C-alpha cells in the first residue's frame, strides 16, 4: 500500500479543497452545502416523529465508528443515525482494540479499509487524524472531533438548533464563553456562524482566547458582561485538567467561575443558552441556567441525531451529483 500515499496526498494539499466525499472541517463547506445539510436534517427530523423510525435509505451500507476518545452523545448519535438509516454499523473504541497493542492509526485505517466500509466516523485526540484515515482508506470520512481542530457535526447541529429555535441564523449575535483555546467545538462553530451570516463574540480569560483568533471574523471580550448583548450565549465546557495547579491558564477554578461562570444574573431573561455537553454544573454554567426553559441544551442533543443522519445520507447519496430538493425527500 506504500505507493498509495503520494497519490492521495495530492488530493489533500491546498489550495484545492479536500474532496467533498469527506466531512472534515466546516471550512471546507460552502453556505449552500450547509443549507442543504440543514434542509436534509429537517426532513429526517420529521421521519423521527413517526412510530416506526427506521428508513431503508442506507441498507447494505457499512458505517464504522472509530473512537479514540471517550464520547457519549457523539458516538451514540452517530451509531443511532446509521441504524435509523438501516446501515450496518460497527463501533470500535480504542480501549480494548489493537490500539492498546500499539497499532498505529495508519495500520488501523488499513485494517478497517479491508472491510470496504462506506463511511468511517473518527474521533481522535490529534489534529489531522481524519485526513490520515482518508488517505489510507477508500471510505468517506466524517470527523467526529480531532484534537482542538474541528468538530463539524457539532457545529452543524448547533446551527440547526439555532435555525429551528430562532427562525434563522443570519444576523444573529452569538457569544461563545469559556475555554476557546482548547475547544474544537468553538473553532467549528465560529466558522459555521460566520458562514451563515451571524456575528460572534468570544468571551473568556485572556490566556484561554488564542492569539490571532480575531482573524476568523469574531470579536473578543474578556468581560462576562459582553454576553448580555447576544441573542445566544454558547457556553463551552471547562476542562478540569486545564485547571490543575501549575497549568496557570486561570489562577483557579473558583476564580474562573466567579468571573466567567454563566449564572442567572449574568444573562437576560429569555436569553437562549447552549452548551455542547458534557456540562460541569456550577463551574462554567449554573444549574439554574442549564435547566431553564430557554436553554436549548437538550434540543441540541436531539438535533444531533437528525443532523448526523443528514450527513451520512448526504455523503453516501449526494456526492458530486445534484439531488432532489430536501423538502421533497422520499423518506418512506
Amino acid at each position: 500500500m506504500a505507493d498509495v500515499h503520494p497519490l492521495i496526498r495530492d488530493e489533500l494539499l491546498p489550495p484545492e479543497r479536500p474532496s467533498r466525499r469527506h466531512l472534515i472541517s466546516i471550512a471546507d463547506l460552502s453556505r449552500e452545502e450547509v443549507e442543504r445539510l440543514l434542509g436534509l436534517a429537517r426532513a429526517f427530523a420529521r421521519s423521527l416523529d413517526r412510530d416506526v423510525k427506521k428508513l431503508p435509505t442506507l441498507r447494505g451500507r457499512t458505517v464504522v465508528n472509530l473512537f479514540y476518545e471517550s464520547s457519549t452523545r457523539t458516538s451514540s448519535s452517530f451509531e443511532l443515525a446509521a441504524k435509523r438509516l438501516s446501515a450496518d454499523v460497527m463501533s470500535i473504541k480504542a480501549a480494548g482494540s489493537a490500539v492498546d497493542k500499539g497499532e498505529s492509526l495508519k495500520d488501523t485505517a488499513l485494517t478497517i479499509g479491508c472491510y470496504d466500509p462506506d463511511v468511517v466516523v473518527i474521533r481522535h485526540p490529534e489534529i489531522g487524524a481524519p485526513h490520515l484515515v482518508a488517505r489510507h482508506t477508500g471510505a468517506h470520512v466524517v470527523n467526529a472531533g480531532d484534537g482542538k481542530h474541528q468538530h463539524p457535526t457539532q457545529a452543524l447541529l448547533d446551527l440547526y438548533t439555532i435555525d429551528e429555535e430562532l427562525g434563522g441564523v443570519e444576523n444573529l449575535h452569538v457569544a461563545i464563553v469559556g475555554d476557546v483555546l482548547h475547544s474544537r467545538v468553538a473553532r467549528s462553530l465560529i466558522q459555521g456562524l460566520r458562514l451563515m451570516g451571524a456575528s460572534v463574540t468570544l468571551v473568556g480569560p485572556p490566556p484561554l482566547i488564542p492569539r490571532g483568533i480575531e482573524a476568523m471574523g469574531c470579536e473578543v471580550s474578556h468581560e462576562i458582561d459582553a454576553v448580555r448583548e447576544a441573542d445566544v450565549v454558547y457556553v463551552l465546557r471547562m476542562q478540569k485538567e486545564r485547571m490543575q495547579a501549575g497549568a496557570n491558564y486561570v489562577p483557579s477554578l473558583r476564580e474562573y467561575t466567579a468571573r466567567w461562570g454563566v449564572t442567572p444574573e449574568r444573562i437576560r431573561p429569555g436569553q437562549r443558552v447552549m452548551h455542547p455537553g458534557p456540562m460541569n454544573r456550577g463551574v462554567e454554567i449554573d444549574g439554574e441556567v442549564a435547566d431553564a426553559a430557554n436553554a436549548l441544551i437538550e434540543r441540541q442533543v436531539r438535533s444531533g441525531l437528525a443532523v448526523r443522519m443528514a450527513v451520512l445520507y448526504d455523503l453516501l447519496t449526494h456526492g458530486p451529483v445534484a439531488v432532489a430538493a430536501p423538502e421533497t425527500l422520499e423518506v418512506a
Partner: protein
Amino acid sequence: MLVAPNRPLDDLVIRGARVLDPVEGVDERLDVRVDGGVITQLGAAADANGHRVLDGDGLVLAPAFVDPHVHLRTPGREDEEDLVSGTRAAAAGGYCAILAMPNTDPVVDSAAVLGSLVERARREAEIPVGFLAAITKGQSGEELTEMGELAEAGAAGFTDDGKPVREPGLLRRALQYSAVARPPVALHCEEPTLSRGGQMHEGVTSAELGFGGYPSVAESLMVVRDLALAEYEGRPLHLLHLSARESVEALRQARTAGVAATGEVTPHHLTETDEAVRSLDPNLKMNPPLRAEGDRLALIEALRDGTIAAVATDHAPHARHEKEVPFESAPFGVTGLETAFSVLHTRLVEPGVLPLETLLERMSAGPAGVYGLERPRVAVGAEANLVLLDLSATWRVEETGFRSRSVNSWLLGATLRGRPVATVAAGRLVFAA
C-alpha cells in the same frame, strides 16, 4: 575541521561552463582543468590529456556548497541516515562539505564517540564531513563536555542543537572555555517554557487550526540573551536556524555593535510560511516552525544584506512510519540536502528576490567562514570543490529520487527549476547526474 574521505583524487576537465565565483570576482565562460584534485588551469581550451571531460555548455560552474547544519543520525538511527547515504545526498545537492550535529545516540560528547565517527567518515563518507560536539554532556544542559579534548579529536565546533542551553551561567562558561577549544559555540535558541506544547508558529493559522502555538518570542528572547552573553564575553557565537523577524533584528544590532555573531537560515524558512501547515502535512513540522510572511521577508532581507551569513538545510531525516501519523505525533524535522539550491533558485533567484551571486556565496563561502573552514573557490592552485548547475532544468521532487535514506521532504510533489548536475568535493568527482 573537516574529515576528508581517504579516496583517490581525480583528473578532470570541465569545458565551456559559465564560471561564477562571486568572491573571487570570476564570471566568464572558461574551461577548468583539475589535476590530482587541484585546479591547475582556468582559461580557454584546456587540454583534456586523457582526463575525464564534463561538458559545461549552458551550465554554471560555481564553488561547491557547504552545509553547516545536517543531522546524519549516526550513530543510533542508521535506519534514517548514515554516513554513506547522507554524504551521497549532500553530493547530489551540490555540497562539497557538511557539518553534522551531535544530537545522536549516543550524543557526540566524548572523544571516544567523536573518534569513531572520524574513523568511519574517512572510510565511508563520500564528501568531507565536520562533526560538531555537544556543549554539555548528553546535551542535558548540566555539565560541560571536555571541550578541549574534543577539539583536539577534531570537533568542528560546539552545539547542543535540538535543545537550548537553558542556564545562562552554563552558557557563559561554555563561551569562555571555547577560547581554548574550537569556536564557534552554535546555539539553538528556544525558551522552553514559551515553546512548550507548541506544534507550529503561534499566530492566525494556529488559532484557527487549534494547534498549540510556538511563538516567535520563544526564539528571539533566547537570541537576545545569548547575544548579550557573547558580547559580554567577547566570544564568537553562531545562531542556528533563525526563524523570527525579532531574532534577525537582534542579530543585526549586535553585529553592528561589533559582536562576533553569525547566523544561518534554512530554505524552508526562506520560502514557506505557517499558512502551509493548513495541509496538516507532518513534513511541514519542524523546529523552529514556519513563521509568518513578515518573518520570512525579514529573513530574506537579512540573507541579502549579510546579517545572516549562511544557508543551512537543517536536514533532519525521519523514518517514514514516524512521519505517517497525525501532525501532533510526528517528530520535528524535514530533509533538505537534495533540494536546497533548487528551491532557493526557483523561489528566490528566478523571481528576482535574491541575486544568484548572493545565493552562491551564502551557500558556500558564508557557511565556510562561520566555522573557519577553507572557502571553496574556483582559482588555480585551489583544491577542486566545484558544483556544476543546470539553471534551466525543470524537475519534480519525488520520493523515488532521493539518495537520502529518508523521504520526509517538505517539497514532495513540487516542481523546481535548476539543479546540480555534477559535484567535485575535495578533488573528487562525487556526483554526476
